[in-house]
């Protein structure tokens, strides 16, 4: 079956939302069981006492990138049918900086706050509630940010193109970088004073 199996018509689009729930369950389970329902565990990455975020995030990125390259190589997935995050350079950077400050203040990102809500963390619920306010503020003040929102458009640009190398070679370097980070994280964690949480 050539993926994505919904848009290629193998399975009725009516199944898409059912798969959405199932995939979401897998997502939530993976996040919570790894410890992403705890803001103090997540934030450990920034102080060096717990690198779970680095380990889980980059392992997941490697697994999915390599998996997609293999599926594409064997003709099992039509890459042109996949949603590729478009690149708008200015808003990606400015939005990322704002999110980074929110991350350090709240200790969650949107997905992990949902995992925290799922196990009853009130701070996760308050963070998620704050997101509605932030989205509302942005939407209401859109005219002020409209120019920035659309500036620096580069379409569905791929990172390997930016470096002028093949997707396979880029992914190989990604794996090397991730493994380097995993060893670096283990080394730092040994040096840093333990924090009880």
């Amino acid at each position: 079956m050539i993926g994505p199996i919904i848009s290629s018509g193998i399975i009725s689009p009516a199944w898409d939302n059912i798969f959405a729930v199932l995939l979401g369950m897998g997502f939530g389970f993976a996040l919570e069981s790894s410890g992403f329902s705890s803001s103090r565990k997540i934030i450990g990455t920034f102080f060096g006492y717990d690198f779970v975020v680095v380990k889980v995030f980059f392992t997941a990125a490697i697994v999915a990138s390599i998996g997609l390259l293999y599926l594409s190589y064997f003709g099992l997935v039509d890459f042109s049918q996949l949603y590729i995050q478009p690149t708008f350079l200015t808003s990606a950077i400015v939005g990322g900086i704002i999110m980074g400050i929110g991350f350090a203040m709240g200790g969650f990102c949107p997905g992990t706050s949902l995992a925290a809500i799922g196990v009853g963390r009130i701070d996760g619920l308050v963070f998620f509630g704050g997101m509605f306010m932030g989205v509302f503020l942005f939407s209401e003040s859109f005219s002020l940010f409209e120019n920035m929102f659309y500036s620096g458009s580069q379409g569905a640009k791929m990172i390997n193109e930016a470096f002028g190398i093949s997707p396979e070679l880029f992914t190989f370097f990604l794996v090397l970088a991730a493994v380097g980070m995993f060893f670096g994280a283990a080394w730092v964690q040994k040096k840093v004073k333990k924090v009880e949480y």
Partner: protein
Amino acid sequence: MKKIKNDGSFYVNPYLGGVMLGTVLLLSFYISGRGLGASGAVKNTVAATVNIVAPQHVEKSAYYCQFAGGDKEPMSNWLIYEVIGVLAGAFISGIIFNRLKFKVEHSPKITSRRRLIFALGGGVLFGFGTQLARGCTSGAALSGMAVLSFGGYITMIAIFGTAFVAAWVLRKNWI
């Protein structure tokens, strides 16, 4: 499956967790042709709510009208269903690993109140940032990285780079 904590709960090995997360992400692309997300559901809920309260406002807004109004159904959206699944999946994990409990998690050096104020502020900023960057850590960064999107990598670096600096500034809240 080690690191059993005082309260009897434990976490899976982070690399196993990463393989789980990566496999779910891969399946998401293979089945639905898209990555995982979280902030899109908030956007659609906000747009749908504003559409009920003030439909004319939605029509006039250059932002809302992309998601709500007319014959658009912002609440019958893939991301909304996925987010319901995330809550259920986390709940199941909480049962299995013995972590279900209503509490405010915070450093013993700060009060719950301070923790909640910062959580709210963090949520507001994060929500705002997701709209500007067209996605969050999952939708823009992780899912973008899986398909080697340039923008996904840029957003990831901006989020983590800033958070390292900001966490140090706010360290009294955490350590």
